[in-house]
């Protein structure tokens, strides 16, 4: 069991699974309709494995990560600081002077036996970005699953309805009546627009609406798409004697959109927000400073260098001023 969890949560396993999905998908593009590969059990099994791996990865990592990020060690040892990618012994500067120059951070302070400990951090959410993205991807997959299950359950969904002009269709407690169908053209004869005008009759409520190629209508959970029309009739007399509508009801769609947006947010957060941490340990004469950032460290470390130079310049100015007094 332990071994299984270790395997499933490892990045190598996830990457291998993604690689298999890539290969199967590439093969799938050579088959029409897609279902030969994308509806096949091996493909679904690998998607399932990836989902499981994604879920386990985040579940096993997010709690320790939360603890580490929300409750960082403040009273740290010298060895801890010296192991950080940025560390320096700064003399002639006090921790509070550095703190005053380091803008935009909230400092946590502790002291024991004459030593002051200071800690500040920024961009904590950056560390959670990957897990937000994982969570979003799982919501998206749930939405797909819900859509697939509900699609089978709803008797009207995934049906094509052919309605003769002037006739109507009885669905799920309301009526859709086809009033007319119009094709408009550009000057060069290319089609500009297909437009079906329908009236929805639901008890006392009556409303007339247009359905176009990019403009389906949704009523009581059912969406009607323009699917086809009597092209022979249009060519011969300019009138379509029938119009076909695709009817869809996909309860998973809101989940899919929610999942997509959460995934995107997670990706952006993990790519663009860097988690910066800075520790100081000092007495009056000198401080030991350590810093780490999970990305764009160069800029972060340069900012620290700038503050150090400023403080050094001030210290020198003070020295000069002091010497004048003497």
């Amino acid at each position, binding site marked *: 069991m332990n071994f299984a969890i270790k395997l499933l949560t490892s990045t190598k396993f996830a990457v291998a699974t993604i690689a298999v999905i890539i290969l199967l998908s590439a093969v799938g593009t050579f088959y029409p*309709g897609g279902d030969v590969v994308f509806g096949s059990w091996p493909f679904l099994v690998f998607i399932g494995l990836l989902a499981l791996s994604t879920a386990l990865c985040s579940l096993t990592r997010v709690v320790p990560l939360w603890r580490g990020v929300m409750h960082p060690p403040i009273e740290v040892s010298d060895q801890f600081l010296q192991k950080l990618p940025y560390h320096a012994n700064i003399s002639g500067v006090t921790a509070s002077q550095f703190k005053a120059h380091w803008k935009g951070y909230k400092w946590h302070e502790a002291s024991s036996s004459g030593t002051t400990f200071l800690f500040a951090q920024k961009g904590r959410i950056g560390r959670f970005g990957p897990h937000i993205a994982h969570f979003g991807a799982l919501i998206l997959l749930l939405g797909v699953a819900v859509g697939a299950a509900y699609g089978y359950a709803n008797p009207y969904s995934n049906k094509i309805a052919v309605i003769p002009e002037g006739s109507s269709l009885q669905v799920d407690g309301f009526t859709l009546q086809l009033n007319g169908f119009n094709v408009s053209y550009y000057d060069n004869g290319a089609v500009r627009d297909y437009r079906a005008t329908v009236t929805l009759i639901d008890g006392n409520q009556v409303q007339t609406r247009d359905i176009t190629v990019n*403009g389906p209508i949704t009523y009581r959970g059912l969406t009607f798409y323009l699917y086809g029309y009597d092209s022979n009739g249009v060519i011969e007399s300019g009138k379509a004697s029938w119009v076909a509508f695709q009817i869809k009801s996909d309860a998973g769609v809101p989940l899919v959109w929610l999942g997509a947006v959460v995934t*995107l947010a997670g990706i952006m957060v993990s790519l663009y927000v860097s988690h910066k941490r800075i520790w100081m340990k000092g007495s009056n004469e000198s401080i030991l400073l350590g810093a780490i950032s999970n990305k764009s460290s160069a800029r972060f470390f340069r900012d620290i260098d700038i503050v150090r130079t400023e403080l050094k310049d001030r210290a020198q100015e003070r020295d000069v001023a002091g010497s004048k007094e003497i």
Partner: protein
Amino acid sequence: MDIAALEQLGFEIALGTYLISSILFILYFSTKKRRLAEMGFTLVAFGFAFQTLALATRWFYAGHPPWVNTYEVMSFFAWTIVGAYLILNVRSDYRSVGTLVAPLAFATLGFASLQPTNPTPLIPALQSVWLLIHVPIVILSYCAFFIAFVASVLYLFKDKQLSEGRLMEGPHQPRDSSANATRAVSHEPIGVLGKFSLDQLDDLAYKSVAVGFPLLTIGIITGAIWAEAAWGSYWSWDPKETWSLITWLVFLIYLHARTQNWSSSLAAYIASFGFLSVICTFLGVGYVLPFLETYFSVSTGLHGYVGGGVVAGTVFFCGILGFVLLLLFATRKKPPSATEAPPAEESTEAAPAH
């Protein structure tokens, strides 16, 4: 002057300047004369200005954004890669990358010129606000992945040369011996390879993917929203959708690889494969699948810009794919005998002693 003629003039001047600068860059590549690269760069910038004019006038007189038919999409793609190259050169000196950018811009624009240039009125499915958003976002993501590919290939070449002891690590490690100084001078014209360290190239690749990946994600989501409205399904495993997902998954592997302690050259190869997938998504779906249609009854999908001149398109696709593969093949390190040679550091230090 007729506005359509103005657009054509801008396009042709851009095509011409990209051709001349391609020649200059190829000459630069063989002679290593710095001035040739500078001239090439100036010409590319000149051509870019004219192409901007051409695209703007076209948008104005066609009445829709200039990324609907093949001619427009290819021209727009060439514009984005040249634009990215110019932006890259604002803060750093990546002039010699023009050796890759200018010929690709010329080939893409040349391919565009073989297509019907008349603006096509928008078919009903394309009349959507998503046309304005989805297409440029996707093209920009391709452009970012192209830059990631360029950085990755440069990384792999530099890595190869370092391991073969033919190039010193960048100027960031100061050298004091006079023998080394003359060596540095003789290597100076190598351009980007001499100028940037492995870390810098690696960083450029990562940053480009960090731009391209969210863009592709947005591109796929907006495409799905559009598909939901136009075709009644947010995802139907259309070849275009499938290949864009493959590209997304390859870069997903890249980003996961970056969180692990895997080697940077592995990351560079993954990014390069990602760009191969971009080529398949962008061109392969439209220009290879139609040929297989007879055998496999493949659906060529609903992305209308890949239409007309399928043969030219296939040649263009195969040419670019072949060129990318050739470049990747050339980054292969020599068999063990060469790699066992002492690392670059030592060999350059040892040189004066002999």
